[in-house]
């Protein structure tokens, strides 16, 4: 048999004739040209990958001592914390890693939002990314039941019961998910299986797809200009690009070092982070007869949790009215063609009516789920002629600012007990969050845009 021709010799040559190792390294590292004007926002992608590795490795070691059994789960976590040599360190790495995963992923997504990294041709990069975000939420939720503390138990109870709000099939569906009439040993076992096998497999697959899609279309950059369309050198390489390795691989190590300082500080000095990373009620074993006086999800779910709580039956009047106004506006404007011109407003009117006929509970679940699902559609909601926030009208930056502050307020509200003022604030916040995305097709094209340069802006340093 003829062997493949390769440039490498020796052992690497032997491998390369059988497996495209050097080819892959070139494609994804040493000959992957990334724009040269990346700023610190571009640390968070590689940091997310680092946290994924931390979670997988610490997870493997935790499973060696953890028992997924309602009778022993709580005890086995305490055993890891007190008696397994170094167990506390591995577990705190895992629990801190969970929160830090969301920190870096939220910042990574915000970067995408700022620089239009979801715009054509990067729609699939973004969609795989939102898929990763969903998997992370699943991992966090399933994993949170495992210590079998009070928060684990009642958090799972609430989230599984979310599904019972779906009309007709809901109650049977939540029974099917729990595998029992209450959250029990059966639920713990299946959540364990999802947490350690099913979701991680999907997650890793999506991460690979995310990176392959990214390397196919090339990285965006803070200016939102395509380096592939810019000038090229005599080898056909974009002059505004630099090889990922060694330039960004080394650059990212700086980010890793900074991140690990923060990460280690949390593990050693404040692994509970004042009850935000590890909730105090979760140090009490699960008691099916008593809900803790104040329950709140972990911080990374609280913005969405606030939207769930904000949807009362009065608030569905607001949502219903919004759907009706949208129907009228779409019909009057007549941008849609053919059957859609009638169908879309008709569907919106039906939704507006259902808002008042189905339980507010169901719509709470819909607004919470919708707040995440809407991210999938971002590439098609944004109609701005420029990608990057740098060249958008100044008031767009104000809108982004409002969106960020609003998201933080929603998150804070989710950690607080309910009262009338906070419910109203949550409702206003929910409207702002949803309006930011749903009205994006309108506002994103308004205003005076600044001229986009042909080349990336870069100052050598």
């Amino acid at each position, binding site marked *: 048999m003829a062997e493949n021709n390769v440039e490498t010799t020796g052992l690497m040559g032997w491998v390369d004739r059988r497996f495209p190792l050097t080819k892959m390294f070139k494609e994804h590292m040493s000959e992957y040209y990334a724009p040269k004007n990346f700023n610190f926002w571009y640390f968070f992608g590689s940091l997310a990958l680092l946290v994924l590795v931390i979670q997988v490795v610490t997870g493997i070691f935790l499973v060696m001592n953890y028992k997924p059994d309602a009778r022993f789960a709580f005890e086995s976590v305490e055993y890891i914390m007190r008696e397994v040599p170094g167990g506390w360190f591995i577990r705190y790495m895992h629990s801190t890693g969970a929160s830090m995963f969301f920190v870096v992923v939220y910042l990574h997504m915000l970067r995408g939002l700022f620089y239009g990294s979801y715009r054509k041709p990067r729609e699939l990069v973004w969609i795989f990314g939102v898929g990763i975000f969903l998997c992370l939420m699943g991992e966090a939720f399933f994993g949170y039941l495992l210590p079998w503390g009070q928060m684990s138990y009642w958090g799972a109870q609430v989230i599984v019961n979310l599904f*019972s709000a779906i009309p007709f099939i809901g109650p049977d569906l939540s*029974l099917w998910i729990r595998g029992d009439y209450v959250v029990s040993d059966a639920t713990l076992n299946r959540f364990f299986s999802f947490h350690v096998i099913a979701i991680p497999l999907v997650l890793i697959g999506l991460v690979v797809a995310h990176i392959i899609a990214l390397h196919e279309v090339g990285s965006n950059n803070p200016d939102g200009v395509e380096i592939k369309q810019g000038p090229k050198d005599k080898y056909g390489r974009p002059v505004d690009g630099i090889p990922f390795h060694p330039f960004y691989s080394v650059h990212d190590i700086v980010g890793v070092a900074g991140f690990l300082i923060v990460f280690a500080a949390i593990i050693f000095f404040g692994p509970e982070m004042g009850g935000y990373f590890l909730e105090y009620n979760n140090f009490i074993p699960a008691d099916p007869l008593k*809900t803790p006086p104040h329950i709140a999800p972990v911080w990374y779910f609280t913005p969405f949790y606030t939207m769930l709580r904000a949807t009362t039956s009065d608030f569905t009047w607001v949502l219903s009215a919004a759907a009706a106004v949208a129907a009228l506006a779409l019909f009057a404007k007549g941008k849609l063609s053919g059957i859609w011109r009638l169908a879309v407003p008709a569907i919106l009117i039906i939704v507006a009516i259902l808002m008042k006929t189905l339980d507010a509970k169901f719509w709470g679940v819909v607004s919470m789920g919708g707040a995440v699902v809407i991210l999938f559609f971002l590439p098609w909601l944004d109609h701005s002629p420029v990608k990057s926030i740098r060249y958008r009208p100044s008031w767009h930056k104000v809108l982004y600012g409002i969106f960020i502050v609003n998201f933080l307020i929603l998150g804070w509200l989710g950690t607080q007990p309910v009262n009338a003022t906070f419910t109203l604030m949550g409702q206003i916040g929910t409207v702002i969050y949803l309006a930011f995305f749903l009205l994006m097709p309108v506002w994103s094209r308004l205003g005076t845009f600044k001229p986009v340069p042909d080349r990336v802006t870069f100052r050598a340093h």
Partner: protein
Amino acid sequence: MSQNPTQSDEQGAVDPNLPPDPSRRFWVASACTLGGVAGVATAVPFVGSFAPSEKAKAAGAPVEADISNLPEGQMMVVEWRGKPIWIVHRTKAELADLPKHDAELADPKSQRPGFTPQFAENEWRSRKPEYFICIGICTHLGCSPTAHFQTGAQPGLPNDWPGGWLCPCHGSTFDLAGRVFKNKPAPDNLEVPPYAFSPDGSHVMIGVDEYPNKA
């Protein structure tokens, strides 16, 4: 079959210009369909394994509680099917207050199906007016509300609070008959389980419609 007879191994791969062979198309489609059916059929037991096991289904035996020592104005909790069951001994004053706030309730007459058995379709939602028994699980998302029997203004509750329960999770409030207040996340009144009192009234059995005849 109907392959071009001039094709043979020595001449290399199949000619790309060869017209599609309808008989092969049929077999490819059939194989895919049957394989798909088999795949779906195999998924059935996997999906089915998620349903409650026989053991979980059998764990619903009735439980009995001694209420002879439960003082007026107090509540006790027993576990039935893994859920908290509240037994409240209501005072005369609390019973008299029940109809006063009907206008603030979402379903004062407990007419929505599925939460109130026939025997409890009355103002006090129980067999005996003084004893209120319900499943202590909020009809919103399944937290267990906390008792706030003290009337009047207090943190997190309205100023004219008539006494009842507050769900810590999403703020739903229930009166002393487990009826939900309007414009709260919980859509329904607290569920009343089947139960029966012993003939001497000292015990109550949860999970049965008639007290078993203990000989």
